[in-house]
């Protein structure tokens, strides 16, 4: 039972063999770091696919650089064929959502942070945790394999709408779609094992004194996210299994020819898909809350309202899925119901935004790289949230449904929101993960370039969408009414290439620091959390003795205290701590 070897007792000497320590490790910190490398790899793959998409949209019909290397069947003369193009769109979405952003937020930060932040030696089920990572390898492997099989990858978009996805009759894609389904089912299992672990760990393994309302907001967010995943991901698995059977066993779930219901796929998919949206944003909110309080040197504004807002968002997230289907032929009365419940989500979201602003208000803000990224998260989330309200109202949605407006919206919440928070989190916890401090100047250069080119890439998409450009269009110049908008497409494509290049400073900084970075202090950001009381990187088993928690995690600038921060595990209570 190596799984529990380090649990409960202080570890002075770690004699696990290399393979147990770094490869098939049950240590939550190693698993978090494994997830980090894997999901950054998929982020790169998804980004490269996006470059292919942008080349075709900006310069339709012109041979892609290096496109000559692709087989003639995929890209005749270096120009991607329409089918390959839709494959690029599908797999870009699939990789980014399931294999980049979700594991970056949940796989990395839930694994790495939860036990450290609540004062636990490891996860509740370390071996299940190891499986949760190692299932991602076959899952991602099947997805990558689907790019290379006969017939090509799935071409039905990341939402794989039936009946397009349910039979090869329409697309000619056999194996690619089946591998997609298998990859998603294995992914679901991985996510399930992780979520069982996160929930059980937070409920049962908190250190003495770590009450529910002393939990850092990042832990709250990851806990609520795990609850969402437990409830939503199995539904996706069930739906995808039925889709798989439609393709392989000849069942008729989604095929109208055999009496099946294509609309049922949309209901099942979005019953998962909308909570999934909050799975992708709640951890980002939690990470940003922690970093904004730290960077403002002030307690978080409205801690309890933050928690209840997240719970509210999570609950509402389950009763709004129909807003993806206003144009699907669903009963319009149902559409109004979904419109109202969707717009109600603006309330808890606004509470959170105003709380972040309230936290920064009159704080002594330190513009470190993590803080800059966290502020970018808040501002971009506001834009993404507001464009969401446009589409939540049925009458407006009828006009912009399925256009580049939705592409702009999702990238504002998923890149501008989630990914900036991911960058904030990586810069913030990198010193704890690897014991080295990332270069601050290169971090800021990365931030500024990314922020500029990100906005130049995605903001004009709103205009394209209102102009009527369809979201999965292959060649915009074939339509008379879209031709005047083509310069915008060229502009977006060039910005997108520069956005991709802007990630170079990050890659160099990340790898360079790993190789020859300067050693990090135990607590470089002067934060209060328990993870900053242990060495960087923390030893197997985390804490030499189980820590005791005396207060919440956001006691910054306490009057009368010698430092401007007060770690949660320091027993002395300065008399001036009780303040209004």
């Amino acid at each position: 039972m190596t799984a529990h070897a380090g649990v409960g007792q202080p570890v002075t000497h770690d004699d696990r063999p290399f393979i147990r320590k770094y490869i098939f490790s049950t240590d939550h910190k190693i698993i978090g770091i494994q997830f980090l490398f894997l999901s950054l790899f998929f982020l790169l793959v998804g980004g490269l696919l996006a470059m292919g998409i942008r080349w075709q949209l900006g310069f339709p019909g012109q041979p892609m650089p290096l496109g000559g290397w692709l087989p003639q069947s995929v890209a005749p003369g270096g120009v991607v064929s329409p089918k390959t193009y839709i494959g690029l769109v599908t797999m870009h979405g699939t990789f980014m959502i399931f294999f980049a952003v979700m594991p970056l937020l949940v796989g990395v930060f839930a694994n790495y942070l939860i036990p450290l932040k609540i004062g636990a030696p490891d996860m509740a089920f370390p071996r299940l945790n190891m499986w949760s990572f190692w299932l991602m390898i076959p899952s991602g492997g099947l997805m990558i394999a689907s790019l290379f099989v006969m017939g090509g990858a799935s071409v039905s978009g990341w939402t794989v709408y039936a009946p397009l996805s349910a039979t090869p009759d329409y697309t000619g894609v056999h194996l690619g779609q089946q591998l997609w389904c298998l990859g998603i089912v294995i992914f679901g299992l991985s996510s399930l094992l992780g979520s069982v672990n996160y929930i059980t760990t937070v409920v049962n393994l908190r250190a003495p004194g770590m009450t529910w309302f002393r939990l850092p907001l990042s832990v709250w967010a990851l806990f609520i996210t795990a609850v969402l995943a437990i409830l939503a991901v199995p539904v996706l698995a069930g739906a995808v299994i039925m889709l798989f059977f439609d393709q392989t066993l000849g069942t008729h779930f989604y095929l109208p020819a055999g009496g099946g219901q294509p609309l049922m796929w949309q209901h099942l998919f979005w019953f998962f898909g909308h909570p999934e949206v909050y799975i992708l944003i709640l951890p980002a909110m939690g990470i940003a809350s922690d970093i904004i309080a730290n960077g403002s040197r002030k307690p978080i504004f409205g801690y309890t309202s933050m928690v209840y807002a997240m719970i509210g968002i999570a609950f509402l997230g389950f009763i709004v899925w129909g807003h993806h289907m206003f144009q699907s032929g669903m009963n319009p009365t149902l559409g109004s119901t979904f419109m109202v419940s969707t717009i109600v989500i603006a309330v808890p979201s606004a509470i959170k935004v105003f709380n972040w602003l309230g936290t920064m208000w009159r704080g002594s803000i330190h513009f470190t790289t993590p803080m800059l990224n966290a502020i970018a998260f808040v501002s971009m989330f506001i834009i993404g949230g507001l464009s969401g309200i446009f589409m939540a109202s049925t009458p407006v949605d009828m006009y912009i449904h399925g256009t580049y407006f939705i592409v702009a919206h999702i990238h504002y919440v998923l890149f501008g929101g989630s990914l900036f928070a991911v960058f904030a989190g990586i810069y913030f916890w990198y010193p704890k993960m690897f014991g080295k401090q990332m270069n601050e100047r290169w971090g800021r250069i990365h931030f500024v370039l990314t922020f500029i080119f990100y906005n130049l890439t995605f903001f004009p998409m709103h205009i394209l969408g209102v102009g009527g450009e369809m979201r999965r269009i292959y060649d915009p110049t074939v339509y008379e009414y879209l031709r005047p908008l083509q310069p915008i497409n060229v502009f977006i494509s060039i910005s997108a290439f520069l956005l991709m290049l802007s990630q170079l400073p990050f890659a160099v900084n990340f790898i360079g620091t790993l190789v020859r970075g300067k050693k990090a202090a135990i607590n470089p950001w002067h934060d209060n959390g328990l993870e900053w009381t242990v060495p960087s990187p923390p030893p197997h088993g985390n804490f030499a003795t189980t820590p005791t928690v005396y207060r919440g995690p956001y006691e910054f600038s306490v009057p009368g205290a010698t430092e401007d921060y007060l770690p949660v595990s320091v027993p002395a209570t300065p008399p001036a701590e009780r303040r209004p």
Partner: protein
Amino acid sequence: MTAHAAVGTPSAGAPAQGGVGVYTQKLGMWVFLVSEVMFFTALIGSYIILRWGTDASWPEPRTVLAIPVTALNTFILICSSVSMVKAYAAATRDDQAGLKRWLLLTVLGGATFVSVQAYEYHHLIEKGFLPSSGLFGSTFYTMTGFHGFHVTCGVISMIWVTVRAFRGKYAGGNYRGVETIGLYWHFVDLVWIILFTIVYLI
């Protein structure tokens, strides 16, 4: 995977201050079962929509399926739940002989259920009733197939627990593994009672 959840050593399982007072393996199993409920809800919900929410024509189940055989099989599965309860009761009394006996009976009940289901499938396929035989075939094989898969996983885990019982791992009040696998067993049993009602009887 169930085996892992069920048989973890109790060293990491002490409830924390302010925990819900349920030990870790049991809590993990409950959380896992929540997700299982959602999984079967997706399958059963789709069945309900396809059968009653559309104007699809549906055959009378008894004209296709052999209800008496499956009714007997249902009875066997319910009996295996009873023997699971008896096994747990024996474990709480530290009655090792009783624990082993009742666990073996539980394994036997589960294995019988899966075998009869395999026989039923064989028979139906010979008659030409396939997953591609209309919506009834699609939903029938998907739902009962995944239930059968769950029972199979349960039997494999139960064999593992039984082997551990024979090695005396649950002696001296350390019977958490028995309780945890029992939760899973009763859940799978419960799903079958729902499936038998809405697929075979209605």
